[in-house]
Each structure stands twice: as C-alpha cells, then as structure tokens.
C-alpha cells in the first residue's frame, strides 16, 4: 500500500516536471547552502587545528608576569620578575613527563646580508628548541651544547630568510649580520608556511640563547620556556608540576600568587576549533532559514495540487477511500518531493564545498552525519508542510468534491 502510494506520487511528480522542479528549487537551494556551509566549516576547523598544532603539539609555554592583568595598584607585584636561567635549570632537573624543555627569547631585529636586509623574528634558544616545537632541519645541524653554552655566533635560518638573501641557493657557511653582530649560518629550517592568522612562521633566525642575550637583548632574561609533554603525559597533568617547580625555584611563598603564567597550546587549539565550529553552526542556521522558505514552497504547491485534484479526491472517497488514505497519499507526495529536493541539494552542496576546498586550500570534509541529517530534515519538511494541504484534501466532502469542475 505505501509502496503503491510512493509510485503514485512519483508519477504525479513526473507529470508536472517543470512545476515540480520549481517547487523543489527552494529545498534544493536550502539544503545545498546548509551542506556547503557545514562542509566548508568543518574543513576550516580542521585547517585551524592543523595550523595550531604546527606551533608544536602538547606544548606548554611559560612566560613571566601574572596569569591575567596587573597586580594591585602600586604593589610590589607589578614589577615583573623575568624568567631566569635557574628556573630553566630547575625544570630540567626536576620535571618528569617532558620530552623537551627549551628557553626562548624573541625580538624583531634587522638582519643584513650583503646589500639586502630583512626584519626577522630572532630567537635565542638552545638545541632542545627544535624538538619542543616539532621543527626539523632541511640541511645543516642544530647548535651543539658547547655552542649553546658559550654563545657562539652561529644561527639557523627559516625559508623566508633564505629566499630573501640566497634565493634557492645553499646558505650554509654564509655569514649574516644580526643587529651589528655577525653570525654564521649552520642550518636551514623546514618551511612551516603561514599560520591561519597570516603570520609567516619562516621569517626567523635562531641563535644560541647566550649569544642572543649578550649581543642582542643586552640582558640575561628568558622570555619563554617551551615544555613539550611526552606521549604518556597530558599537558593538563604536566602543568601543575611545572607550576610547583617554578614556584619553588622562584621562592614564592604559599600565600602569594605566581608571578609567571603557563599557557597550554592544546587548550588554545581546542578553543579556536570550537570558535570556528560555533561560527559554522551559526552560518548553517542562517542557511537553514532558506529551508523554511523551501517548505513553504512545498506547502503552496501541495495546496494547488489538492485543489486541482479535488475531483480525483472525490472519486477516491466515493469508491471507499478513508480520510487516512487521502492524507497518506498527499503526505507521501509532499515527502517524496522534498526528499528529492534534499538529495539534489546535497549533491550540489557537496560539489560547492569541493570547489571551495580547492580554491581555499582547506580539507574537503563532508560529514555523513550532516548528510543523513539533511536527508531526514528534508523529509520532515515535506511531512510538516505537506500535512496541512493533505489534511485539507482528506477532509473534503465527497459530494462537493465530485461536483468540482
């Protein structure tokens, strides 16, 4: 019986191909918009996550200063006590669960080679930095421990710096000038590209911390300490250990707040991802409104269809159809119609998302759940908006319906 009715409705949809198509347009556009939105959105989320994980995975970053905002007015707290070498030493000596611990101090500095110059992010650090940041060398070697300790004038450069000074040539062994001090290039860093926020991660020069402190910063401060958790230790577990060790090393009494902050990059990544997910959801909801418009289109055409087929309804009622038979017939027709629109919409939406993922270079991430949801939702729209017209048909008086011209 239900299969019979589905066949019947397909036939009546085929009879009015153009009209059916125009009716479907609303649903098609609505579903296509939702599918494209959500698919592009989840691709963007993946991209953002990937970008952030480029900063290094399972990474804690310690910097000096209170976790949020300045201290009380005029209080001694306000004097920021920078991180120092002994803090780093304490961590290296006592922290378990870390894969790499590395100091880093940064500054934008003019870098010169021959007649060319470039403003670069110059970082003073040690050989553990590459491991902490998941960064590899394309060629050359990292700083040796003795170079780190003595603060030799050697450096590693990023791809952007190489392109600026040497084009595609080999930079190894060349001497560049960094803020009036010279340093010899001993390695080339693997290209990381831009972050999702448009920052060039390859415009960098790394040098031993002591060299940086002495020749560029002119102090003994450490801006950040990077701590990469090992595979068995979640950053959330590592964080309190780091805090304890540092409070101890910095002799902070229990009644006082810490004068340093620990940021969990994994948490930041999750927060960013959930922000884009929320954004995607909102865009999807806006697109969902067009589905509503599509539903009204279905309702309209079903009302026309019921009116046009009043006599048919009369005949069916006269020969013994119950109200529910007529109701089901028109409900099925509306549902099949909008389901058809939904399926066409999904195909178009996926095509659009595929196109977008090519041009925006984000991953193509269609979600089976979203597609199933779209199928279910379009069927639901057919049922909801088809119900009123179908009810109207089912309630017709057979005598009046038979007399209808």
């Amino acid at each position: 019986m239900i299969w019979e009715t589905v066949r019947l409705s397909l036939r009546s949809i085929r009879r009015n191909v153009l009209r059916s198509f125009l009716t479907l347009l609303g649903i098609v556009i609505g579903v296509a918009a939702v599918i494209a939105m959500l698919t592009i959105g989840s691709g963007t989320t993946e991209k953002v996550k990937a970008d952030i994980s480029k900063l290094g995975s399972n990474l804690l970053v310690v910097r000096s200063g209170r976790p949020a905002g300045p201290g009380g007015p005029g209080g001694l707290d306000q004097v920021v006590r920078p991180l120092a070498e002994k803090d780093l030493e304490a961590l290296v000596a006592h922290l378990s669960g870390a894969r790499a611990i590395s100091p880093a101090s940064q500054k934008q500095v003019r870098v010169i080679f021959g007649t060319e110059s470039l403003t670069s992010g110059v970082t003073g650090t040690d050989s553990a930095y590459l491991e902490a940041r998941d960064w590899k060398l394309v060629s050359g070697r990292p700083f040796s421990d003795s170079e780190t300790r003595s603060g030799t004038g050697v450096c590693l450069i990023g791809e952007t710096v190489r392109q600026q000074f040497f084009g595609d040539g080999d930079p190894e062994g060349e001497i560049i000038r960094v803020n009036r001090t010279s340093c010899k290039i001993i390695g080339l860093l693997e290209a990381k590209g831009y972050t999702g926020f448009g920052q060039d991660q390859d415009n960098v020069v790394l040098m031993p911390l002591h060299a940086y402190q002495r020749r560029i910063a002119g102090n003994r401060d450490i801006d950040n300490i990077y701590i990469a958790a090992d595979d068995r230790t979640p950053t959330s577990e590592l964080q309190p250990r780091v805090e304890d060790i540092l409070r101890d090393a910095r002799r902070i009494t229990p009644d006082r707040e810490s004068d340093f902050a620990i940021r969990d990059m994994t948490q930041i990544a999750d927060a960013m991802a959930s922000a884009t997910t929320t954004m995607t959801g909102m865009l999807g909801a806006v697109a969902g409104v067009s589905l509503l418009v599509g539903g009204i289109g279905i309702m309209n055409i079903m009302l026309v269809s019921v009116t046009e087929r009043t006599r048919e309804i009369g005949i069916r009622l006269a020969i013994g159809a119950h109200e529910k038979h007529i109701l089901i017939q028109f409900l099925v027709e509306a549902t099949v119609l909008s389901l058809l629109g939904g399926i066409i919409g999904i195909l178009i939406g996926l095509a659009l998302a595929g196109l977008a993922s090519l041009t925006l270079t984000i991953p193509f991430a269609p979600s089976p759940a979203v597609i199933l949801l779209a199928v279910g939702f379009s069927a639901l729209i057919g049922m909801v908006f088809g119900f009123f017209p179908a009810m109207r048909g089912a309630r017709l008086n057979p005598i009046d319906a038979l007399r209808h011209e």
Partner: protein
Amino acid sequence: MAAGAPLITFDKVWKSYGQGEARVHALAGVDLAIKRGEFVAIMGPSGSGKSTAMNIIGCLDTPTAGTYSFMGIDAGRLDRNRRAMLRNLYVGFVFQGYNLLARTTAAENVELPLIYRGVASRERRNLAMQALAQVGLVGREHHTPAELSGGQQQRVAIARAIVTRPTLLVADEPTGNLDTARTHEIMELLTQLNTELGLTIAMVTHEVDVAGYAERTIRFLDGHVASDIMKVELA
C-alpha cells in the same frame, strides 16, 4: 437482516440546505423501500431531489432528519470512515460524467477500489481484467480515458463499480452523455448485470426509454415521491 427485508429503507427522510428564509428542502419526508435484486429507475423534473436521494442511498450523504437504513444498518448515523467502508464493500457508483482518473489506464482505474480494500496487486490485476471483460472492453485495458469514446469510458466506470462485486449499483444519469445507440448498449449491460449477478440497481434518468429497462419507476416531485410504479402494472 430477515429474509425478504428491504435492502434500502427511507423512513421520513428529510434533506435540507441553507438557513431561515433561504432554507431548501431537497427531500421532504420521503418514505421508500428497495429490495435486493430490484432494478429501480428514478425520474422527475430537475431539482426534484433525485440526486440528493441517490447520494443518501449510496451512503455518500446523510439525511438531515429521518432514518436511512442500508442492509439493516442505520447508515445515516455512521461517521465518514464507516460510510466509506460500506461504500467500498457494498456499493458501486456510475456517474453521468464517468469520473475516471485522467492519465490513468482503464485497468488501473478499475483496480482503484480494490487498492482501498488491501487486495494484493496481482489479484487486483486479474479481477480488473475480469471486470473489463464483463463490460466488453477486452483489448482496451491499457488505454487512458482520453483514448476512449464516451461509451467505452462509461463501460470502464461500470467495470470499476462491479469489480468489488457490490450488492448495490448507484447510477446517476449513466447515459446522460451518450447517444441513443450507446445508451441502449449500456442499458443492456446494466440489465444483464441485474439479471445475471442479481445486482440491485438504483438509476436516475430523464428518458422514459431508459427507465423502460427497469422493472420499477419512482417519480420525484419537489422532494416527495409522486408515484412508484412496477413495470408489470404499466404493461
């Protein structure tokens, strides 16, 4: 239902439309009985209430006052769906305008009442073919109404009415749209169904010729039964 009891009984049946000044009584206290197997013609001037009476007889409509019983059932007080069931089980309809579904083949039109009975598709097809054969339409099963003449369309309608093997056939001016030759063919078919299958037939007509095929003629006038004559009495 006791043996010999009428199939159809009107007991002071009224059917009124409108309110106050504009109130019209299409039927004004009609008493009437039709037995199983009878072939009754209903005549009378336009607006005298013939179609109104037929709709009540066929359980399409209900009286405003009085009692209509069909097979001993108080059909006038049944709800829509129960009356639909009665129609599906016991009543076949033939209309002046054929009332076939457009763009639907003869066979599919004939199958329609069986769908609402829940008959399986294969058996439906067989029964429809049989009914079409009974009305002399072999070879036209897959034609749509637009491809059939008026007489042929009315035969399809008759096949659709008898495919469920009903007790009663209700025909409101079945030959109203047909020429003389076609009219007589259809009337012969109805007579044959009445005598061979014992089908009870109630038929409205304006033509004395057509009424002549029935064994009994009831004349309506202003919502009353004006006369009720058996053919033998005429002869």
